[in-house]
């Protein structure tokens, strides 16, 4: 397994370089640059050119990329083109918020999706399944940002139970920290739960009609044991893959929720970076996300082996 993990990491290196190279080139193709943002609308062409030179933006693109990679190989992610802050520091400030939100949303979505998926599968064509399907469709149909706004109005403005936005990151004030997480995480989780519960339902349905389940029933095993001990474990294998993909995509894809709830995550940092043409921020953020993606995929593969003993990770 050790060799497997090392091999996977080695395979990730070209992926990292290719993705950063691609984004580097694409973002530089967009008109406008960080110099214009820093200079502001009052700048003269001379001042703009001077800032551009100072930032190194007058160099050929390939040279700029090589400079960035050279620094990277020395363990230096660089500094924000605009604010001058170290990228590592910016990511350190934002990554915990994103990871916290993602983990919370994934956990909530699993807590909701698992029983809903099982109940739907075990009550096929019943009233309960119809009710759950309706809820699922609603959650899938309602856009995240709108659900978020409605949640803020209800729980913050009317009931005043939860804060409408912002993140409280205070170890000495866990109550407020959790409160600040509930609305954004739940809003994000509902959509995930709807998709996930449908996936669980269909997988479970498929497994419930497999021969070994029929055999178990024929042997007189009761329904609960059949579902939870025999069928569910097999039905969850593909779910783990989906969870891994969802988790990875959430790391960079919570921008809308971050915006609605003023959650200071990596997504917002990246969007600001793109908008301000802060190439160093975008590159650094992307690098982090790709690395996390690779680690999560690896974890998914390892989890497979744990859940299903038939799967052996080949060296």
């Amino acid at each position, binding site marked *: 397994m050790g060799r497997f993990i090392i091999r996977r990491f080695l395979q990730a290196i070209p992926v990292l370089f290719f993705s950063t190279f691609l984004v580097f080139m694409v973002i530089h193709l967009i*008109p406008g640059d960080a110099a214009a943002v*820093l200079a*502001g609308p009052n700048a003269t062409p001379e001042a703009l050119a001077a*800032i551009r030179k100072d930032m190194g933006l007058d160099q050929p693109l390939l040279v700029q990329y090589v400079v960035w990679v050279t620094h990277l190989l020395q363990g230096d992610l660089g500094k924000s083109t605009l604010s001058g*802050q170290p990228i590592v520091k910016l990511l350190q*400030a934002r990554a915990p918020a994103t990871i916290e939100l993602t983990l919370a949303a994934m956990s909530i979505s699993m807590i909701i999706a698992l029983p809903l998926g099982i109940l739907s599968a075990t009550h096929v064509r019943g009233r309960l399944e119809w009710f759950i399907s309706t809820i699922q469709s609603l959650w899938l149909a309602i856009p995240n940002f709108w659900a978020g706004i409605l949640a803020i109005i209800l729980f913050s*403005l009317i009931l005043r139970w939860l804060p409408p936005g*912002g993140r409280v990151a205070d170890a000495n004030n866990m109550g407020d920290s959790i409160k600040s997480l509930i609305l954004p995480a739940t809003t994000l989780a509902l959509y995930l739960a709807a998709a996930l519960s449908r996936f669980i339902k269909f997988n479970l349905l498929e497994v419930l009609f497999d021969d070994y389940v029929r055999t178990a029933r024929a042997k007189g095993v009761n329904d609960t044991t059949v579902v939870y001990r025999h069928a569910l474990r097999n039905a969850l294998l593909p779910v783990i893959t989906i969870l891994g993909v969802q988790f990875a995509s959430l790391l960079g894809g919570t921008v809308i929720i971050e915006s609605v709830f003023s959650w200071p995550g990596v997504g917002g940092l990246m969007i*600001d970076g793109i908008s301000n043409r802060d190439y160093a921020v975008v590159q650094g953020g992307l690098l982090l996300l790709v690395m996390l993606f690779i680690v999560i995929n690896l974890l998914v593969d390892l989890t497979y082996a744990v859940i299903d003993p038939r799967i052996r990770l080949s060296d």
Partner: protein
Amino acid sequence: MRANRAVRGTQQRPGRPGNGRRQPSGTSGASGTLASTSATVQPAAAQPKTGGSLRFAQTANPVSIDGNSIAGGGNETAWLVFDRLTQYDQNRQPQPMLAESWDIASDFKQFKLNLRKGVQFHSGRELTSDDVKYTVLRLRESTVGSGILAGFSNWFTAIDLPDKSTVVLRTDSPRPTFFDAIELFNIVDKDNVEGPEAKSKIIGTGPFTFVEWQNGDHFTIAKNKNYWQSGRPYLDEIVSYVRNQQTMDLQLESNGMDVVKIPGVDDFVRLKSDPDYQATIHPASGTFFEIGFNTARPPFDDPRVRQAFNYAMDRKRFCDTIMRNTAVPLNLPWSATSPAYDAAKNSVYTYDLDRARALLKEAGAGTIETGILVNGIGAPQVLQFAQIFQDSLAQIGVKLNLQNVEPAIWVDTLINKKPDYTGLWGGSDQIAQLAPSTLFQLSPGWRLDNNHSAYKNEMWTTLVNSALSESDPTKQKDLYTRLNDFILDQSFTVPIATYPYTFLMRANVMGVQYQLHNGGVSFTDTWLA
């Protein structure tokens, strides 16, 4: 230095250190304290309380906290860490800050500033004249991103330091608007801005000390216990958040914020009559929306076409519907507090499509299809105006295409006059609260060199230069009249309406003061009831 008869000023706030006062003998030394002359947002209550934390939110996300960077936040954040040499009161009269008095030569070419003694940076180092000189020169460095401030700094051809408390600034041309410049110069600490923490920590002499900056989320400052103005500030702490408009408005309503800057128009109007909140519009922010034409290209090289477009602007509809009557239509850049304001001239261009049609016909313009370059992120209201404008122009046979671009593209395209800039541009401007000539000298929409409208005219240059150097109020007034007529006739850059800098505050927030720079407010005298 010639003895100054025209302009000499000195003032003290009560209880400030070094209160050996000289009486003001000139026109610029208005009486009273800053606290009483700067307009407060709300009536002062009986007894200010000390302590407490103020939660402030705005949508603007400063990309830098450098005190000399034009992108470095605003009044309510990084600026509170710094002091300026002087500060205008509500009547545009300079009041002492780090400079406690001044002597100005009658030809307005030499300015002697006497610095307040005993002022310390937050690091504990004493402020000296060296720091002032360092700041003025630093503003010229293009890499600092000081924007219009570099233009001000370049006025000064010599900076002499007779002693550690005196600065003498000299200019080649008369600069009667000297105080416009130093109003915006945050005096920075050389050790800080050249040190390793320059980008993540700021040190000034201001009422609040830097605590933390989490880019894109919040900026925290704490009371400067050694502030030179005794007893100030009242607040222990200010946390300034970056929030989207809707979230910050909701946070205010759910008691998660105390003050929000530029809330949603609908929320502002809705909460205006609610006694739990104070809703105010900055009376002299000097900010306005404007549209310009690429006058270097046909058909906008013909003033009649520009006038026609000016007549086709339905400013009232914009102010009524989009701005919900928080904005006022403008033909000229000036709000009522400006010395160049002229109510009659401000309504020359009323919405008149027949007249617009006739002017286009007279100019032989033919079929026009053009574009308007708008920065929808920086000035979303202008994008909304452009949609109204598009509809109006369609009625006179003109097709207007909206080009909504990001700030980086907008700036680059206009400053470098990129090929795809062929028609109009729309944006906001911000320094009409200062001397009118300052706007014409520095604003990108109006300045003489490389303005966004690519407008050049000998008469314009002569008028602006005359206004810049004229110090006689009567002659100034005459020049402003001529400039106003010229602007209306040439219509190369056209104001649309005031850009109201609105504030929503909870009812217990007291002592918030308007400032004449950047349409902001100051929290130096703010306290929580």
